[in-house]
């Protein structure tokens, strides 16, 4: 087994550098999205992010607790209708509805979870499928004033416009043509950020570990003091609460909700996103939402001429093409997209945890490959791959084909690894100065450093230029 290119102790200065770089990329991505996308594409992005939150909710139950619950479209619907009704009928502000939606979702979760979680496996799946199937018809019931609140079969529109107030006009994208959708994008991003933080904290501590323990071995969990029904129901209710929040975000984004929006088809989309993103990973939820929406969108635009017949993604075969992509994915990335990303990450960096003494559990030096190090060569290859892929990508973008275009776009992203090449090359040169590397590494390391710096500079300049041009 070859060691990764970078080995750092947890919380060491170098580890922090790595984390800052990741945050920088994330910030760059978030800032540029509402600026470079077309207004309708921002709408798609918003929908994808809303789905991500719902997928996170499903993940809490299915991925982290091992309970096959498939009916979260109903919780989304509940959140969406409560929001629509409170904002439209009662003139509340959206943010005032947030606690209401969370509480209603939680209570619904307890009501459904208490009996449903007593049954397991396929039975639970069946009960929750019923929940998803029945929801769209429930909103049409005339009794108890339900239909009046939900708009019945016509759906319910919210006339309040969500546009940026004056003091938020500085947010990227919110003025001009993108206006409303870019502003809603920012609201959604902030809500997701807070949700992710709270959910991550929850899962990485005592109550979250109990949830995982139930998934991995119920008898073991019980013997070690985990109250199974209480923890399951609590987790299910939290999940329902987050699902309802996704419903609120849906309403906020679209300004219109209808029973047909929350059918079992939506529940299936959530499961697809969950599996493609990565079951039982937090990042997988986010990636899954983006994937479901964008891949669905791309397949619709596909058009491949096959002699007499044109394979048209917008025609009757739309779902078949999407299905094919799903099948390919389950074959080549059964752990979801996150598992692929983790494989790449494992080749790049290893973070060594700390013992209570504050020392890394294994000395960092023990990972040093010594005189046989191939890290400089790897860094050089990485630094060359960036610009080469960029050039290929640029050329390929001119070919008028959607599929080539998508791959070309992905290709160009390799340049984002330029800072890694710089970091590795610098480390290698340092090791050389300490006499731990042969002279032969100097050439590749210097090349890697130079090209890597150029690549990094290019990424920064390119991003800044896009930002300034569009701002």
């Amino acid at each position, binding site marked *: 087994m070859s060691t990764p290119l970078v080995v750092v102790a947890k919380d060491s200065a170098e580890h922090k550098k790595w984390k800052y770089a990741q945050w920088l990329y994330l910030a760059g991505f978030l800032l540029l999205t509402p600026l470079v996308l077309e207004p309708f594409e921002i709408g798609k992005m918003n929908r994808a992010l809303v789905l991500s939150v719902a997928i996170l909710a499903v993940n809490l139950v299915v991925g982290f607790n091992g309970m096959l619950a498939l009916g979260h479209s109903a919780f989304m619907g509940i959140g969406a209708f409560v929001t629509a009704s409170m904002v439209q009928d009662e003139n509340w502000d959206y943010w005032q509805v947030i606690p209401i939606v969370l509480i209603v979702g939680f209570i619904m979760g307890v009501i459904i979870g208490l009996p449903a979680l007593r049954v397991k496996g396929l039975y639970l799946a069946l009960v929750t499928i019923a929940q998803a199937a029945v929801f769209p018809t429930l909103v049409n019931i005339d009794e108890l004033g339900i239909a009046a609140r939900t708009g019945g079969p016509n759906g319910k529109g919210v006339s309040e416009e969500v546009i940026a107030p004056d003091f938020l006009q500085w947010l990227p994208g919110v003025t001009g043509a993108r206006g409303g959708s870019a502003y809603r994008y920012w609201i959604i991003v902030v809500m997701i950020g807070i949700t992710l933080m709270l959910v991550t*904290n929850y899962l990485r501590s*005592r109550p*979250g570990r109990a949830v995982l*323990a139930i998934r991995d071995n119920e*008898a073991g969990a019980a*013997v*070690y003091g*985990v109250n199974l029904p209480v923890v399951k129901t*609590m987790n299910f209710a939290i999940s329902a609460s987050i699902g309802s929040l996704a419903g609120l975000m849906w309403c906020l984004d679209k300004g219109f909700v209808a029973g047909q929006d929350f059918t079992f088809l939506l529940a299936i989309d959530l499961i697809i996103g969950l599996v493609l993103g990565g079951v039982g990973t937090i990042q997988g939820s986010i990636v899954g939402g983006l994937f479901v929406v964008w891949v669905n969108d791309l397949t619709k635009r596909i058009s491949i001429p096959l002699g007499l017949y044109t394979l048209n993604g917008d025609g009757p075969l739309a779902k078949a093409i999407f299905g094919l992509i799903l099948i390919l994915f389950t074959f080549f990335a059964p752990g979801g997209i996150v598992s692929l990303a983790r494989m790449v990450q494992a080749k790049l960096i290893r973070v060594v*945890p700390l013992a209570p003494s504050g020392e890394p559990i294994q000395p960092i030096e023990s990972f040093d490959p010594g005189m046989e190090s191939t890290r400089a060569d790897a860094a050089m290859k990485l630094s060359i791959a960036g610009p080469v892929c960029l050039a290929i990508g640029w050329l390929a973008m001119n070919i008028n084909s959607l599929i080539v275009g998508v791959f070309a776009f992905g290709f160009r992203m390799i340049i984002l690894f330029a800072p890694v090449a710089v970091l590795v090359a610098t480390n290698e040169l340092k090791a050389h100065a300490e006499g731990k590397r042969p002279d032969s590494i100097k050439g590749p390391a210097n090349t890697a450093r130079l090209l890597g710096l150029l690549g990094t500079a290019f990424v920064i300049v390119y991003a800044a230029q896009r930002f300034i041009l569009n701002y």
Partner: protein
Amino acid sequence: MQRVALLEVSDITVRFGGIVALDDLSFTMDEGQILGLIGPNGAGKTTLFNVVSRIYDPTQGSVTFDGQDLTAMSAHEISRVGVYRTFQNLALWPGMTVIENVMVGDHTNTKSNVLSSALRLPSMRSEEADLRDRAWAALDELNLTDVAYSPAAGLPFGTLKRIELARALIANPRLIMLDEPASGLTHSEVDSLAQDIKDLRDRHNLTVLLVEHHMRMVLGISEKLVVLNFGRKIADGDPDVVRNDPEVIEAYLGSS
């Protein structure tokens, strides 16, 4: 003077359909004792563990621990009185790291809830840091710190068995029930495990109920022996006496 028993198993019968897994079993254990529970395959040893840890309901009989009726409790409450166990075929949580497995071991005596965890309140942070340190110490005691941050999946069986022991130790158990802790170990490892169990008993004031097929180990460290055969107790008492009991010899020779 008559000592009060810590664990008292009285008239326990367990039936699965037509099978009588335990047949009117009674015995007692004193505080601080290492009691060896032996018997051929299928004698009902694991079934007794499952009754004490409330995974199975006995058809009849009761189990008292320190004056409390365990049969009136549910599985997750047993740890509150200090009764812990390991599993013959492991019940670890492979989706977590080894140290996290051990941290869940003290679920009962820790308090952080959903709210304090989601918000990372100071109370939760200090509890978490302390728990992690204690989990590390428990792993250290069993020479497992090398694998502390590895996933609990994919380690050798013998290592996983020791992780189960560490998971039980972190909670400061009063009674610990070990279900074949030596399985998957080499001869020399078995010897050092026997010494470890004695040391742990002394250091942590444990009472140990030991199920093990490894005769040399059981006879070496047990202070009392209970022998089961087809769910019935056939002998009970001082190991040196019990091992020479004709019925015990017969049960072992007859079954092997």
